[in-house]
């Protein structure tokens, strides 16, 4: 953190936060409906973070801080969208083209199934597993970013992962129904084998 002092603020901010662009992008993708909206949310997250940085904020850990800023910005956007709904427009994926269409299509089928399973999770579980597994935060950082106790974060992450695995194992569309806890083991402490 000491290297931040004395440096040009914009350079210091970018040096400290640019490594987390992928994290914020992955989170924003799951908080919005399309690539364009996700880009806007990433931009808004960095603008808010930059403002806070200029006001003197220096987070202990940049990743959970940016995740929190992104979650808050996403919540605000959702509220605004609820008040002023927009007509959805086609949002082409700008990332791919050309020869790898077939491989891309297969990847997308699989990714689509995982995304559908993810979308079927209750919101707190969805946010927790996105932060942990898609964004790469630790359980402690998830707890910090979402403002919940560590035990709660661990439980949400664990249940979310199990539910995704169970939904992907189902022969029918994973998004067809709301997930139920997988037919699992008894949690009775007396069931030790």
């Amino acid at each position: 953190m000491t290297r931040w002092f004395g440096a040009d603020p914009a350079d210091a901010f970018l040096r400290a936060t640019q490594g987390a662009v992928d994290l914020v992008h992955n989170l924003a993708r799951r908080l919005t409906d399309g690539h364009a909206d996700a880009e806007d949310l990433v931009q808004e997250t960095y603008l808010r973070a930059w403002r806070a940085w200029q006001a003197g904020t220096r987070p202990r850990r940049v990743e959970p801080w940016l995740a929190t800023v992104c979650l808050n910005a996403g919540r605000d956007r959702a509220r605004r969208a609820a008040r002023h709904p927009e007509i959805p427009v086609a949002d082409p994926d700008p990332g791919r083209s050309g020869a790898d269409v077939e491989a891309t299509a297969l990847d997308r089928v699989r990714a689509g199934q995982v995304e559908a399973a993810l979308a079927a999770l209750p919101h707190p579980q969805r946010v927790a597993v996105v932060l942990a597994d898609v964004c790469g935060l630790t359980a402690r950082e998830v707890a910090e970013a979402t403002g919940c106790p560590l035990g709660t974060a661990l439980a949400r992450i664990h249940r979310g992962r199990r539910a995704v695995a169970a939904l992907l194992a189902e022969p029918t569309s994973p998004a067809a129904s709301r997930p139920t806890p997988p037919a699992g083991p008894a949690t009775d402490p007396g069931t030790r084998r």
Partner: protein
Amino acid sequence: MRHDPQTLAARFIGGELGRAQRWRFQRHLVDCEDCWTQVRAATAGRAALESLREAAPARTRDRVRAVTELTTTEPHAGAVVIRPRRAAAMLVAAAVVVAAAVVGLSIVRQPSGDPALAEVITGYRNSTAWAPAADPPPAASLDGLRWVGTSATTLDGARVLGHRYARPDGTQVLIVIGGANFPRPPGARPVADGDWVTEVDGVTVFCTLPPVSLVVGSDPAAVAGTARALVRGGG
């Protein structure tokens, strides 16, 4: 260690068990079907979710850099310097004035006395202020904005074109290209490669060279993104 397979598995996978606890749990997994089922299911779910990770597109990175560059407060002759301790209060004030979610800080308060610059701002704010023109745009889309129309006017005796681009959310950018020279106004902040940026009454004006083009808009990041896409030759 209390036998709660769900909690134990969650703490084990989450790296929240101490070294000794971890070792004991790993031994326990060999014999305990309940805990093993929990760990296996969660590991499978984690692997599936990790497959969704993707790198942010270059354009997103550009926009992150742009939003920082264009809202940086720097000392200039005649410029309003925003100190970090005052930044929060000034930002709140700016947010109230502009009433938008994404707004750049006012880097330089530029008097809008320059007639050419004032005409450019007018062209941006009023899509019907300039005469419609049939000239082709530089690209059908730039940085996620789509071309919506071209108009023309005369600046300092030279004909200039204004190509308007927009996003579905209403963000608009005007690219002004023409024979007119756009000298760097006093107080404008130099950017790399001879480019400069300034702000006039809440509108950001970004000049790229060559060819001399002004990219004009209320969203600083959209302006910078469009300018970069323009230089690169497409969206």
